[in-house]
Every structure is written in C-alpha cells, then in structure tokens.
C-alpha cells in the first residue's frame, strides 16, 4: 500500500459518486461501485476551535474506496472528499 496525499481531479455522477479521476497524467475509470465510508481526525491536536455548530467536518472525513482502471490495469485507490469545498485528494493506493 502506498500512502500519498495529492489533490486529484474527480468526475462524479448525478448522486455525487466518483466515476473517474486523473492522477499523475493518467486517467482512471471507476470500475465496480465505489464504497463511501467515514473516518475521523484528532481535532484536538490542531484545530483552533471546537465551538457548537462548527460542523462534523471538524471530526469526520469522507472517504471513498475505489477500484479504477487505467490501461486495462485495475487498482484500488482511496480518496478523501471534503464536503466543505468539494475538494478531492488521493490518499492511498493499494498494490
């Protein structure tokens, strides 16, 4: 497994599920249905505020586990999606 942390451009369908993305010059097409899950952050380590109403994104990170193809080769990827600014990052590549 490869840990990385790079912004990626992701194309999504009408319900917001990723259908493809480009990374390091390659374009990946999502194969089987991606799995969305949620992990958390240790907000107390770096956040300056934790006031009521700050929102779940202080604590929670949306994750997508994706099987995607580029040039016939399938690999598993993990992306994070920030709901606040709709930014996607690639965080893990499974070998």
């Amino acid at each position: 497994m490869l840990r990385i942390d790079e912004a990626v451009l992701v194309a999504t369908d009408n319900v917001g599920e990723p259908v493809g993305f480009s990374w390091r010059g390659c374009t990946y097409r999502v194969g089987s249905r991606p799995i969305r899950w949620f992990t958390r952050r240790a907000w107390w380590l770096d956040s300056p505020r934790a006031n009521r109403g700050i929102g779940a994104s202080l604590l929670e990170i949306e994750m997508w586990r994706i099987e995607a193809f580029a040039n016939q080769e399938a690999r598993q990827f993990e992306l994070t999606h920030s709901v606040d600014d709709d930014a996607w990052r690639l965080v893990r590549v499974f070998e």
Partner: protein
Amino acid sequence: MSFVHLHVASAFSGHYGVTRPELLAEAVAAAKGDCAALTDRDGLYGAVKHIGACLKLGLAPIVGVDLAVFDDDWQALGRCVVLAHGNNRGLGWSALCRVVSAAHRPKRSARESGKNRLIGIRRSELADLVQDEDRSFATVLIGPDSDVGKATLLGNKTESERALRGWQALFRTPAALGVEIVSHLTEPGTHLSVSHAKRMLQLADSLRVPAVLTNSVRYLAPDDAVTADVLDAARFLVPLGEFEAQPNAQAWLKSATQMRALAADIATEDSRAELLLKHTEALANRCRLEPVSDCGWGIPKTPEKEALGIAGNPFEVLWQRAHAGIEWRYPDAKAKALAEVQHRLNLELMTINKLGFATYFLTVADVAQMIRDMKIRTAARGSGAGSLTNYLLGISGVDPIEHELLFERFLSTERSSLPDIDIDVESARRHDIYRAIFKRYGGDRVTLLSMQSTYRGRGAMRDSGLALGLDDEQIDEIAKNMWRFSARSFRNALAVKPELAAMAEAVEQDRKMNLLVDITERLDRLPRHISMHPCGVILGDQTLLGLTPVEPSGIDLPMSQFDKDDMDPMGLLKLDVLGVRMQSSMAHAVNEIERVHGQRIDLDAIRKDDEATFKLIRSTNTLGIFQIESPGQRELTGKHQPTEFNDLTIQISLFRPGPMKGNMIAPYLDGRHGFAEPEYIHPDLEPILRETYGVVIFHEHVLRVLNKMTGCGLAKADEFRRRLENPKSAAQVQQFFRREAAERGYSQEVIDKVWGILEGFGSFGFCKAHGAAFALPTYQSAWLKTHHPTEFLAGLFTHDPGMYPKRLLLAEARRLGVQILPVCVNRSTTEYLVERIADAPGGEPKYAVRLALTELHGVSGAEIERIIEQRPYSDIADFYLRAKPNRRTLETLATIGALDSLVDATQHNRADVIARARQLNALSDRKQAPTNQATLDFSIVEPVPTGNEDKTVEERVRDELKLMKLDVSEHVLELYRPMLDAMGVVRSDELVGLRSKTEVLIAGVRVATQTPPMRSGKRVVFLSLDDGSGCSDATFFEDAQQRASSILFNTKLLLVAGKTRRTGVRGVSIMADNAWDLRELWKEFNKTQATAELRSSA
C-alpha cells in the same frame, strides 16, 4: 415514509449521550414520525421526560435500556438493548424496571471475581424477567456490541452461530429476541461497517432470528459528535488521544431516507431491505407504550390502608384525626375562635375529599408522627404551613389562622397535582428517619429519590481540561476564578469579567485554552452524575418497584432512577424530609442545657414575644441565627429593626429574589419608619395590606385582594395569581378583574391602580406560609442565642449550620464572652460539649465550650474512637501506649495542646509536650501497654523534657489554623496588628460610630462572597470580612471590581479601602474602592520595617 429509531441514547446516558430527551422527541415530531424510542445506557434516567415529551408532541413513546449482559460465570457477553412491549397493562414496563434494578443490584455471586459492583445482568436472569412460559414482555436486541457482534466481526461463522444460539436457547417465546443491524459507515471490514452489518444480517437470516435496523444513536446531529468525544474522555477518565475514540460522526438521528439508504446498502436485495424496515416497524408497534395503563402515568399512588394501619374509609379517618387535633392545638380557645377553626377545617377537608387526597394526608401525618415519636425535631416548610389540616395533624407547627395563611395557596380544586409537603428535620438524624420509613412501610413501597447533577461552570471546565490533557494545577488555577456563571456563556464571560482578564489573554495566545472554552460550553447543563436527592423519599403502594427502577444510593438504601420532576407525571408521592442543620444545632443546644443545668426546654412552646430576643436581633449580631445571618439579611435587619414575630416572617420573605427584583423592600421600610404615608388605595384593602404598609409582598395578599375586589373565591384567586406570571394569560385575568371590580362599584381609578400593582407583582412575591414556617426556627435560634449562648454555640459548632466558615463562630464566641476550651484527649468528644469551669469566687458558676476531636485534620475516625474508648489517660506515654495514635496524629495533638492536660503545667510548657511526643514517635516500635499497672516503666525511664522555649501566641495561632482551620488562641488578624495599627485600619465595631462617607481602611478574613441578583442586571460583589470585633461588609461595583480583579474571589485575608455608607439605624457598609492581599502588604511592611531599622542602626 417514516423510520423509528429503536436504539437512542439521550444525555441521561451519563458521559455517553449528548442530547436531552425532549430535543430528540421534538426532532422525531418535526420529521413527522409518530413514535419515538429512548434506550438510555444502564437505566431509565430520561424515560419519564421522554414519555412526557412524547405525550406533549402527540407521539407514542417507546422505552428500553442499553445494558451489559453476562453469562452465568460473569463472563462478559457485551451489551444488548431491552425494549419493553406496550399495551399489556404494564407487564412490559414493570419487566423493564425490574431488569434495570437487577442490573444495579450488587452481585453477590460475582463477589470473588471482584465484579460485585459492576452494572449489568446475567443473561439467564434477563430471560426470566422478560418472559414467562409462553409470552414475552420485552424484546432483547443483540447488536454489534454483543458477543454475537464481536464474533461476526472476526468473520468466524461457526463461532457467530454458536453465540447467537446461546441467546436463542434462553429467549424462546415469540418476539423475545431480535438481531440489531447497525452501520455507521466505518472503514470496510471494521466494527460498525457496512460489511459488518451485512454479516450480521446473514447470520440472523440463517438462524431465523428477526432483524431490525437501528443507528445506535447517541446524538441528535453530526456536530454533536465533538461533544461525544469529550464525554468519552470524561467516562474513561483519560485525555483525548489516549483511548480509541468513536470511529466517526455517524451516530446521529438520521432521516428516514438516510436509514432506507443504509438498509439498501446492507441488504443484498431490495426485498430484504424492505423486510428489514418492516420488521423494525413491527417491533416499534409492539413497543408503543400506553402511558396510563402501562406506566401508571398520572395516577396517584399512596400506601394501601393496611400499610397505614387504618381501617374503613380514609376520609372518615382523616376527618376524625383532624377534629381530634383541635383540642390539642387550641386548648383554651373561646367559642367564637373554635367556630372559625371548625369552619375553616371543614372547608379544607371538603377540598381534600374532592381531590381524593385523604390517604395522602394520612400518610404524611403518619410519617410526621413517627418522626416525633423518634424524638426528632421537625418543622414544616413551604405552602403546606398554610393548611389548618396540616397544623391539626401535627405536620406543621405554624398556626395558619393566627398568621393569616391561606390553604388555597397550598391546595385547591383548581389544581389536581399532588401537593408538596416538606418536613424539615434534624440533619444528623435524617438517615435514621429514612430507615424508619423503609421499616414502617416496607422496602417494596418505599425508595429514595435521586437527582441528576448537571455540568455547570467549574465541573464542565474540569472535565474539558481533563479531555484536553491539561494538568491539574493549570485547571485548578483557572477554575478558581470561575465565579457563578454558566459554562454556556464562558466566552462571553471572558470578555466582561475583570477577574478573568488573565484567562482571556491566555485564550488568545493558547490554542488549547481556546478549545477549552469551546468544549466547556458544549458540556454545560449535560447530566453529570446521579446521586441521592438530599431530601426526597418516594412512598407508593406495593407496585412501586414495577413502576420505577432502583439502584444503590450513597447509603444502604435503594434510590429511584427518577428525579423530582418525574414524580408528578408518574403519580408518585414524594415526601421531602429535609435535613436542616439548624434543627440539629438547636436539638444539641437543648440537650446540653438539660445535661448541664437539668432544665428541659420545649422550644416549640416558648412565647414568641420575648423582648430580649428581639433586642438581640435588632443589634444585627445575628451570626448563627437561622435565615438572617447572611450579610444581606444582616444589613436588612439593621434597617428593619424587627419587633415581633410577624416582622421576621416579613423580613425573611423580603430578602428573596422575587421581592428584591420586584423592588418591595424600600417602600415597605419607608412605610414602616414613617418616611412615607402608607397608601392602601381603597379602605377595603387596608385590613389586607396593613401589616406591610400597603406593599403587596405575599402571594396571600394577591389572593385576598383579588377575592375582595372580584368575589372570585380564594381558590380561583390562586389560579389567577399563577396566571399573572405569564403576560399572555395575565391579559385574561385583567379582563375579568376589571369587569368584576367595576361591577362591585370600585372606581376606575382604584381599579387602574390595583391592577397596576397586581400586574407588576407578576412572579415577584413570596408565599407567606413559607416565610412564617421559616420564621419559627429563626425565632427559636435567636431565643437560644439570647438566653443560652454557650449551649447554642456548642450546637452551632457541632452541626455547622451556617453559611460562614467555622472559625467565624470562634470570633463570635470571643465577642460574646463565651470561653472556648482547647481540644483535650481526656475530655473532647466527637461533639462540642459544654463544661462547667472553675467558679469565680463567690460568683456564678461559669461554663465554656470544649472543642471536639473531630476538628483535627488528618485524624481518622478509628483513632478518635480509640481515644475516647481508652480514656482517661494519666500521662503522655500512657496515652501513646493505649490510644495508639499514629505519628502524625500524636504530633498534631501535642501541637494544638490536646495533651497539655497530661503534664504538670507548672513544670512543662507546650514545647516540652511536643518534644515528648517526638521522643515517643522516635521509638522504633510501640511497647505494649502492661495490664493492671498504674505507672509504666517507660515513663520512669524517660522523663518528660523540660525547659524548651515555649511557643509564642503567633506560633500557636499558625499551628491551629494549619491543623484545624480554627484560630483558637486569638484572632488571626492579631498577627498583623502592628501593620494594621500603623495604617490606621478601622475595626468593624467602630464603623457604626462613623459618619457616612468617611474614608476608611478595613481588614479581615473573608467569610462570605456574594453576587446577589440586582435589579439593574449589573454584577455587584459583596465581601464580608471578619476582624474579630464583628463582620463588616464591603460592596464592589464595576470600577472597584476592575481594580481589585483577581483579589476579589481568591484572597483570604484582605485589606479594603472605601467609604462608609449608612444603611439604617444599626447598619453601615463600605463602598469599596479597592482591595489588597493582606499577606502581600505584610511582606512589604516587614521589608520597609527592616530597612528602617537598618537605617536607624546605621
């Protein structure tokens, strides 16, 4: 489309749930749901509030519990949810209550494994409680946190099936068992992931156990997950980051659409998802409770007639007993007075009968009689003192006719909730009374009441600090400056409170401090822990333990999981038996008078017009007198100058938030002292308001005025009075009042004026019955202080009833000339006793108060017991051998002079005694005390040392303060006397002779700090200082608060600069400009002294 969440923890799941049950129910109603469930962890703590909220919102309530389960060998089987079935005449509810009570019962069978204190239930016992041969009364849900859930997560199919079969074998009846499917969308393959849920569903299907979907909710919205993190830290007692935190923020009350989407994700086919939702709904339907038939909602429950020992119709018994009381209470009454008593009693009894409360009154009377039979002092408090029935039954000791108190304020047919009758008793005997009540009515009819304490300022901050890993010292430092503001407004307080200025700066600089503020605000008002209510006992019938779950309390009696607000909805009779230290103090004083002087005083029978007693009160030396010793009451006493009992009732009532906010004090005092002509508005009102010079103070005044001017009757009038509190409903009252009063011929001007007063009265007044009930112990304690100060002080010292530190009593004793004797191992006991001391030649015998052994810090109860048991002691070695004090205790006793009586005072001083104690402490092992031997060899071998340099008075005072927090030898302020004299500091007892606006310096020990509610809304801080000659009070307004800043709430010894302000005949207070720490000044003073000396010698 709707979805019923069947697994929901509220904030009453201590240190776990985040949201109040009322808010959860509101969210369900807002989402158009028609029923709502609550399943708190380990109890039904929030259940009654949940049911109440559901009823209000038109929802069907569902109640369950989330519990730990064990096998028969006390091996953990994880947690399950138990949901009571409804609509079965309480079978489900009562099973649930009994399950919860069983889970809290100390586990005898688990004692060896050290698990007897754990909360949880054995699976076999659970199975027995929730079903009989062929029916189930509750459904047990096995979810991801159960043994089954854990096995499933590991992917071991055989093990998972074996685990689930273990449950199936015990829960055989229909609907007794279900599998709970939960997905919190965690990382695939982990606990609470979709894949985990999928496997649970497959397992349920393969063993044909019905499955339901829940979201295992612990907060209302995702944002609350942060609060849940902090609660987890508080529960585990470790900082965030040092335990496995919740996986994400998914445990919230999701919408039906979101739950359907989850079902679709979990099930392999759409039809299976539908079935999952269908089974969830079916279980919800089975669990809808009918509050009245299932939980006895609102139906009053009192002990059965047999339990009260009465035969026949309860009302007839009540009638007889009340009438029998007339002879007792009014032995010398004339015919006319008797007729009034009869008439009023009949009216009261008719109301009681109409409401069906005869058994209730008989129950309370029975308890009151039992308490009197135990020879324990009692007094009624609250509106119950307005009832003649209560007076005749011996529940209350205040004559409502003499004091013009109204029954209608206490009870009327306009309201049907059970009335509150509160009984004050000696605090030291309170638990004896509880035990006697349990014994009298049986453990199946009685339980104690509990209360939930909630997070407030300091507590919230402490636990937040713990969560963030701040060290204790840091937290203490901050908490010290938090002074009476709610944590909710912490950030706001930082901006405005001068004493928090340093903290505010830290918050700007330090990220963690900033976080601390935020999470402290989040914790505010959340339930923190449950404990025994300080005074409530629940009395019910034999069904009680099927209506409320119980758990162990701090004492050896069970307590209900419901709090006082839950009593009325559940139809439970709560008896307030409140321990009042003043009652214990007075009982002690009366006992000491009898022991020492052989004179038995009946405090309840003393005349209430003793001039000497009122003279003492008027002097404002009210320290130790019930209700009127606080700085504010002392000041008011100076202005008011009471001359009769009713004045005490009025004064106690005036000094309450309501009358203070309603600005009633000044007009009353003006009228009383003749500064203003009382205005009665109409001759009809004069008889009602004469006692208060035309000022409407009491609820009883409002009732009488309304009744007089509209003829509405007193019962209706009390209903109107309640409606005055709300501006909306007050409008209707106004309409009625204006119409009826006009019809009775009152002029428009009179009507306008009276309405203006009634409207302004709002919720500001006070119940006179309550004031009169309080005035009784006020008068009694003042009488004791006047006529038996030595014994009274002994009582105060022993039971410490007041608001001030004990050392202030020492100052008062000095002021009164009551001698205080030091602790003595041959004489002191666990109480302060009065001793006859050497008589002055030819004079009266003299008496003094002996300090108790219990005052010594760090001396254990066992040591004290031994000291008392082994006495008398002939010398220090004898004491050392037989009382077996530990080293520290021996040194402590020697240091404060408790061993002085064991040496010849002409030969040895205190320093010699201490040297002797150290000698003994230096011995490697304690020699055994030889039996039947008068002198110990040991004492001959080593004589008591002599010739050590004796301790100075200053040293003694410091020792006493350190070891007892009491300055016995002399007032602590004397240590600073040279500086105080050099500065020209004024003594407290000199203030009364000064002109108003004199610039003064005062000094003293802080004895009280108060920030009472002010009409302006601005904070004013009152400090009371004791300097040995009495108390002086300093008032700090905003500017002075700024200047004094951190000195204001922390420093013990203070010097205050300000101007005198006369507040009445005997009243003077100081308008403070600034304050300083006396000890800091002392250091400076000594430095300059030293420099001066150096200079002069140079």
